[in-house]
């Protein structure tokens, strides 16, 4: 499995990758992106099986990234991992094709639960 992690914070990308390992995805190949635009380019070239994206990112937000992906016909499983988790955001995320929105801080257990059935 190949997982693309998009977050403008290097520290948060490290935490997502650490938690993925703790949740049982230690064998996955991982790709990192520093913003939405970088993530879109890597999604097109790396063909990940799963995308985990922050919501607020420079150059292109997570939501804009998702919209662009779907407009490209890329149906890769997509989940938001973000510090905000309002009901409105969840609705927006799902409406645009995300499978889940996981709020920070997360644990290996919440990660595993969110990914069950989608990855």
């Amino acid at each position, binding site marked *: 499995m190949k997982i693309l992690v998009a977050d403008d914070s290097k*520290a948060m990308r490290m935490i997502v990758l650490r938690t993925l390992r703790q949740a049982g995805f230690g064998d996955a190949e991982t790709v990192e992106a520093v913003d939405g635009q970088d993530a879109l380019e890597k999604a097109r070239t790396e063909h990940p099986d799963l995308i985990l994206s922050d919501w607020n990112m420079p150059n292109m937000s997570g939501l804009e990234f998702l919209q662009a992906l779907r407009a490209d016909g890329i149906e890769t499983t997509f989940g938001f991992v973000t510090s905000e988790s309002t009901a409105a955001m969840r609705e927006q995320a799902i409406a645009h094709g995300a499978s889940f929105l996981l*709020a*920070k*801080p997360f644990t290996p257990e919440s990660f595993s639960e969110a990914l069950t059935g989608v990855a």
Partner: protein
Amino acid sequence: MALRPPSTGAPSAPVADGSAIPLPIQEAVRDFLSDLLGRGVACDKASPDSWPDAAPVGAYRSDDGVLLAGCVATVPLAAACGAALAMLPATALDEVVEDGPLPEHLAENWFEVVNVLSGLLNSNSSPHLVLGTVTPLASGGEVAELVASSGRSRAFHVTIDGYGDGLLGFVTRSGD
């Protein structure tokens, strides 16, 4: 169909009242930071008389850009959290001076911690808050005024296993 009063056409003024914003209890702060940093955290209530000039203050603003809440910490705690977040060796804190400034690489990580801490202040029944800036208290301005004000506040003494301890506070703006 319910009747509505005629619109005056004038835009409503931004809400400048943070009284509905929840202030976290110590257990919530402890668990939140422990989950974020992936290590043990201890948290006790504290009542600091004041905050050092170098203390970084996170400014949380409403969707209208109004400053409604703040998060302030002593430099040692901000540094400890910043190092823990990136899983740096504890020796990364050797260069940290108690009265600041916060080293840049740790400041970047502390910004992320403060960003995630907004989750403790957001609720379905209070204005939506987003982190704007994190600046030293000595920078002054409305952020410093908020910290010094008699607005609702709570402070804690926080210890991050393996990294260090310090003070963390949250303050909300009272209605004008």
